């Protein structure tokens, strides 16, 4: 028995040492050398020269991309046709899984990924980019076409809109006009919200609503004609809204797809309303029985937008091919083959020269999720959601 205890202790110490070693491996002396050689950061070439990059990328032979979206498969096909000799290894993962894998590769110094294409810019910025695990890359020719917030801290590929949808089978008009309507008794048990614990973009939505508490307060007065009384222990108006929709028995959905189906396939008279990704609108083409539309006139805001980013992990083994692939994904003024899979209802391009996809109504009244605010407050907001989720 004593032997076993000693053995366990020794193994435990070895394990803890290994753990500590992993924690310290973060600073890399060779980073600047890699940046120089691969041409990133201060060493990036000023002009985007696809032919020169193609020659280098052909020598690299392949490029590995971790993507939050399966549509990357189509991008890979068109990229391989346009640039023969470069094989794309597309890897379809959740954004959280991408973070975990990149962190593991960085600490193992076993660099596999060349491009990450993911949601959740807050985590990408603070857990990956700031510690030096991720570098930004904006192709030179695109700089004049992108607003600063789509170039810094990352290249934003497109904006994803999270909106409130309603059934459009009977009335074309939305049955609610304000976010505060969702707290009224007639919507008890009839509001769907995707699980923010599983879909980080809905933590962004909640946190952004909290960030805009002053607007939410004003809107409350407009709807109810009196100032809002915060519940006991509730620090701000945004959280009070969260507390009230939870108290009103909001249904926690497991995916945006489920919300679209619950709203769009229900009997119009009894249909619920719910938050979902605006890009679910394209499901209507696939399934004619889905009848739902966006509540475009919702007050005080009709959409929360969040960026989908493109970046390169430090020490990526195929940097030239990574640059080419990122540029391919950004498409051209008409959309372009590389951007085509994303040129759909509900996803808005960030390039100022690209039109909105046909049939997509612009939503001007929108709040953009701020990565720094979400990073600083998102967890607390999610904890508040959990504590009130009885």
């Amino acid at each position: 028995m004593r032997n076993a205890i000693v053995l366990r202790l020794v193994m435990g110490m070895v394990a803890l040492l290994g753990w500590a070693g992993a924690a310290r491996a973060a600073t890399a002396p060779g980073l600047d050398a890699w940046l120089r050689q691969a041409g990133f950061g201060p060493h990036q070439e000023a002009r985007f020269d696809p032919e020169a990059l193609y020659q280098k990328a052909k020598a690299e032979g392949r490029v590995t991309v971790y993507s939050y979206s399966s549509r990357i498969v189509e991008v890979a096909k068109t990229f391989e046709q346009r640039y023969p000799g470069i094989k794309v290894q597309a890897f379809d993962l959740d954004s959280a899984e991408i973070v975990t894998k990149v962190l593991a590769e960085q600490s193992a110094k076993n660099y596999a990924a060349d491009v990450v294409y993911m949601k959740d810019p807050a985590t990408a910025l603070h857990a990956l980019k700031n510690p030096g695990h991720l570098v930004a890359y904006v192709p030179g020719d695109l700089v004049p076409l992108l607003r600063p917030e789509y170039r810094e801290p990352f290249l934003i590929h497109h904006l994803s809109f999270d909106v409130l949808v309603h059934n459009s089978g009977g009335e074309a008009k939305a049955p609610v006009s304000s976010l505060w309507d969702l707290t009224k008794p007639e919507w008890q048990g009839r509001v769907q919200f995707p699980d923010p614990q599983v879909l980080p973009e809905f933590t962004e939505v909640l946190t952004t609503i909290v960030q805009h508490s002053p607007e939410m307060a004003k809107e409350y007065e407009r709807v109810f004609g009196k100032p809002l009384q915060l519940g006991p222990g509730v620090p701000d108006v945004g959280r009070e809204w969260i507390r009230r929709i939870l108290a009103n028995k909001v249904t926690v959905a497991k995916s945006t797809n489920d919300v679209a189906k619950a709203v769009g396939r229900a009997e119009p008279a009894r249909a619920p309303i719910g938050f979902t990704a605006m890009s679910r609108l394209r499901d209507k083409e696939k399934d004619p029985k889905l009848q739902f539309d966006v509540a475009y006139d919702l007050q005080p805001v009709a959409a929360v937008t969040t960026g989908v980013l493109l970046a390169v992990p430090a020490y990526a083994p195929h940097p030239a091919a990574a640059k080419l692939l990122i540029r391919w994904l950004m498409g051209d003024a008409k959309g372009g083959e590389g951007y085509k899979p994303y040129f759909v209802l509900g996803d808005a391009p960030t390039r100022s020269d690209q039109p909105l996809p046909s049939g997509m109504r612009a939503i001007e009244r929108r709040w953009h999720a701020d990565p720094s605010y979400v990073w600083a407050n998102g967890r607390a907001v999610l904890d508040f959601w959990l504590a009130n989720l009885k």
Partner: protein
Amino acid sequence: MEQATTIPLRARVNRAAYFLRLPRVSLGLALLVLLLFLVTLPCLLLLAATLTWDVGDIRLSPAARPGAFTLFHWWRVFASDLGEAIFYRPLVRSLATSVSVGLLAVGLGAGLAWMTTRTDLPGRRLVAAMATVPYILPSYTFALAWLTLFRTERLGGGAGLLRYVTGLDPPEWLAYGFVPIVATLTLHYAPFTYLLVSGALASVDAQLEEAGEVLGASRRTILRRITFPLVLPALLSGFILTFSRAVGTFGTPYFLGAPVRYFTLSTTIYSSMVTRTFATGYILAVVLIAASALVIYANQQLIGSRRSFVTIGGKGFRSARMRLGRWRAPAALVSWALVLMAAVAPLLLLAWQTLMRYPDDYSLGNLTLHYWIGGSDPRLAEGEMGILRNDAILGGAWNSLRLSVVVAAIGGILGILVGYAVVAGRRGWLARLLEQQAFLPYLIPSIAFGALYLSIFSKSLGPLPALYGTFLILVLACVAKNLPFSARAGISAMLQVGGELEEAATVAGASWLRRFGRIVLPLSLRGSLAGFLLIFVTTMRELSLIILLITPETRTLTTMTFRYMEQGYAQFADAIILLIVAMVLAGDLLARRLGRLELGT
């Protein structure tokens, strides 16, 4: 003075040397080292992580200093305002559902096992073949089927079948929460007990029961006093495996519980991993480990020393079937209904779904083979080709097969070795330690286990190079995670092999290797076959464990289904599930055939 200390020392050294030369001891020690590496090391790392600030914890507390020691996470789970939401309530629900599932699944599985192996139930061969099917299906398949039947307005998405037929919404307790979770998981996990108990019953010599009959015992007394005690170890193993599996499963409680906010520990752990609050997830995992350690302890108290029976002896063997008499028709009806409900209905539903152009449209005009053999059509599923023409999916099928076979072989043999070492040294600390070690992986949620392996083996470890991206890391993770199965199967099998045969061989001068290879292994193979099969099946459907460890070259079928499911291409997802089922059934048939050849019956 000097002499006085050297003599006992030498004696002690001699004793130790003798002790070490015993095969069960040297084997046990070697296994212990292996398990420490595969199992205990990850557990210690897990524990260390709960006591350390992580990079992301800056979001939880301004006091966070990444890498430094802290008790914050433990405080957060047990004592903060969040405790009730993320710990106490989920714990109660986890225990309530898992214990219920454990009891019901053992009853169901054992009942079916007894009827198919020991009675004249009509159609028992077919029932036996179908009884294992539910376990092959991903567990959330049942949840989805349940929702198709009982969906209410709360989830919307078109009426459930019940509402469609009766025009009434089913009550909420029937649609979501405790009842459906227990019902679907029971159907899914009953095969565990079925396999273990039918293995045990198959090796019970009917002469034992006949002896009772000769002595004038009633049928019920024979069941109670002879058959039941003989299969008790298998029943308890079944309960433990079912309990721990049910406690750790994510899909079903999530699909059926979340709409009414019925969260369990496993769904909370999963969301902790997804929201990258790993320490919270790990602490909840530690709670699961502690709870299940209690269950193992209770089990050892029950069967550890007294309650095991040698049923494979050196004498003749015969099995006979009991006549069910007037119970034959009702028993048949119930068995057939169960098997239909658990095995046939979900498969039919899945098959139907793969043929539907648009999901949820059950009209005939909607049928198509597109998702099986279609070319690229940009209007459907983003232009992906049917699965039988899709190179990526066929490559995934090959990887799944390769992984499952390798893991089943390595895991199964490891299980027999552990079983031997545990049973041979049943009263020693070594045996107990081995048994506990072998059970540990079950309690670590798959997704956490995957994350741990990723962090341990993504850098070189002593003589071992970095394994990230290799096939080997998948094998190691799956073998380790399946140890509880393989070890339980190995132990159950070994408990039934009497010592007399090996003793006879020892007397005749056979070496240990020869005794093990010629006597112990062949005799325990029949019982262990169930173990091999379980590992093969489990690995075939494994998802959360390996999702973080795969790279483009090593991806498997399951990692593709969940994606398709999430993106709403139920047709592709279901088609791949059917492909998995077909591969598993083929493996099952092959294993049974091999098993029969091996035993020469």
